[in-house]
């Protein structure tokens, strides 16, 4: 039986997460179909077709899928899965995947296994619970395994493939939900979950204005800028910058935590980074317990100095 992977995209670009979920899919089986559902998104399907290991690309190009409404996408995926063609249905644990996939699981009357970080076998998976303070190994006997994948735990597959793109003409509109508007943060910087370097600020920055101190450094390192939940709760920066259990999970090559004490919930979002740097004036801050390099210093003097030295 085949594996169905639902692509993450914005109707133009395939998101990097999809190539990583594909690695998880390859650890399960070899016949992998990618579904690209959206509007005027053929170019996304063509990008998906290049991913190594994909056997078929299914393109559902319809206005009802333009905004990835959970009700419509879930109905489409359930329809594709109804002939028991698929043993596994996977997608990235992004806000899009987390939105529609549990709906698919319920419609198929099976459990969903959320946010896996490893595949032990085609029916056994590893996932963090309690904000990463415990790691559970779970086994499923459901006929269809419905799974969201923590993309940052897997490397992306190579490209160079030429899978066929087939059109799917299933149009599902629930009629109960409607897209109104979208406000996306405009940024020239890489996305938090895809960046090689992430620099995050916490309550120590004192206000939103001071996040500018991180920008010069981020520019020099081509880094994404993140924040702790404390900084978001205090209203310094928007929630889409939040790194942590309740925000984004990142695992960059280099993570720089500035003015962040290191609450468990923040560490859960960044402790799989390759190298962690902490800058904090409190030498007892828990963040130093996970940092490869700790600098006890006042961030208001350390940050300009760091920017100058890069």
């Amino acid at each position, binding site marked *: 039986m085949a594996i169905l992977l639902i692509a993450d995209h914005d109707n133009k670009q395939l998101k990097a997460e999809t190539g990583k979920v594909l690695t998880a899919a390859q650890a399960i089986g070899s016949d992998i179909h990618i579904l690209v559902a959206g509007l005027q998104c053929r170019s996304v399907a063509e990008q998906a077709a290049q991913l190594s290991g994909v056997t078929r690309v299914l393109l559902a190009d319809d206005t009802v899928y333009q*905004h990835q*409404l*959970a*009700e419509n996408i879930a109905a489409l995926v359930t329809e594709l899965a109804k002939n028991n063609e698929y043993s596994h249905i996977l997608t990235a644990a992004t806000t899009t995947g*987390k939105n529609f*996939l*549990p709906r*698919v*699981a*319920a*419609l198929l*009357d099976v459990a*969903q296994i*959320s*946010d896996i970080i490893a595949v032990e076998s085609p029916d056994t998976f590893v996932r*963090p*619970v*309690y904000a990463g303070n*415990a*790691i559970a*190994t*779970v*086994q*499923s*006997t*459901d006929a269809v395994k419905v799974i969201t994948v923590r993309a940052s735990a897997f490397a992306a597959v190579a490209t160079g493939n030429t899978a066929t793109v087939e059109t799917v003409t299933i149009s599902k509109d629930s*009629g*109960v*939900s*409607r*897209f*109104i*508007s*979208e*406000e*996306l*943060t405009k940024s020239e910087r890489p*996305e938090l979950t895809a960046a090689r*370097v992430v620099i995050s600020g916490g309550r120590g920055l004192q206000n939103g204005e001071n996040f500018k101190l991180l920008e010069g450094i981020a520019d020099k390192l081509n880094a994404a800028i993140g924040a702790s939940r404390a900084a*978001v709760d205090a209203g310094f920066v928007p*929630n*889409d910058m939040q790194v942590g*259990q*309740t925000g984004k999970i990142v695992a960059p*090559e*280099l993570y720089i935590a500035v003015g962040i004490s290191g609450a*468990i919930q923040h560490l859960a979002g960044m402790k799989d980074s390759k*190298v962690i*740097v902490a800058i904090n004036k409190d*030498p007892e801050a828990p963040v130093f*317990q996970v940092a*490869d*390099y*700790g*600098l006890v*210093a006042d961030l208001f003097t*350390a940050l300009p*100095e760091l920017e100058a*030295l*890069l």
Partner: protein
Amino acid sequence: MKILVPVKRVIDFNVKVRVKPDQSGVDLANVKMAMNPFCEIAVEEAVRLKEAGIASEVIVVSIGPAAVQEQLRTALALGADRAIHLQTEQSLDSLPIAKLLAKVVAEEQPQLVILGKQAIDSDNNQTGQMLAALTGMGQGTFASKVVVNDGKVQVTREIDGGLQTVELTLPAVVSTDLRLNEPRYASLPNIMKAKKKPLETKQAADYGVTLTSNVTTLKVAAPPVRKAGVKVESVAQLVDKLKHEAKVI
């Protein structure tokens, strides 16, 4: 209109979680328990809708052993009108929970179900979406703003990269994100009053729902411990280490 708010009893978010030595799970003996933080936000939102004159009644529901009544009483003290306890000693997965909640929805006919986007123990982020699917309702997950108007609800959602607003036909399911509101604390008089509010206990097993799951937890292990590294003396030394030792810049 009625609002139904499902809530979950979980380990208090301040407690340091410890894995049992036999790897059978997390040690919950003598550990402080509390209402899941996202559920508190859900209760708060429902109570605010009642205070604004939009909702007529706020019903809270929790599924689990007798101890969950503690969290139901907390919700009543925060302003909910009545509580339903579905009693079971079994630990249930999201799908059976969603199926039980779908039965409660059928009985109570709420126009809005507001619940937390995820519980901080299992970190599943599934129940609201599953409930919406089973009842055929629209869903507004990860809400940071909820506006009810004229048989519809507009939900502004926290998505990767920004915000998205959707409009749902009522009845609908809304799951809460952090910035939706800041929950109040229960006052002492309200805690006293909550003791007299109605709390009905029913047996989960009586609903004709399969309570077992096809997913088994084989083991629960402690995460690999990340070792603390070194303290550097200066920014210059830090840059030098990152360039020549870690080789990441």
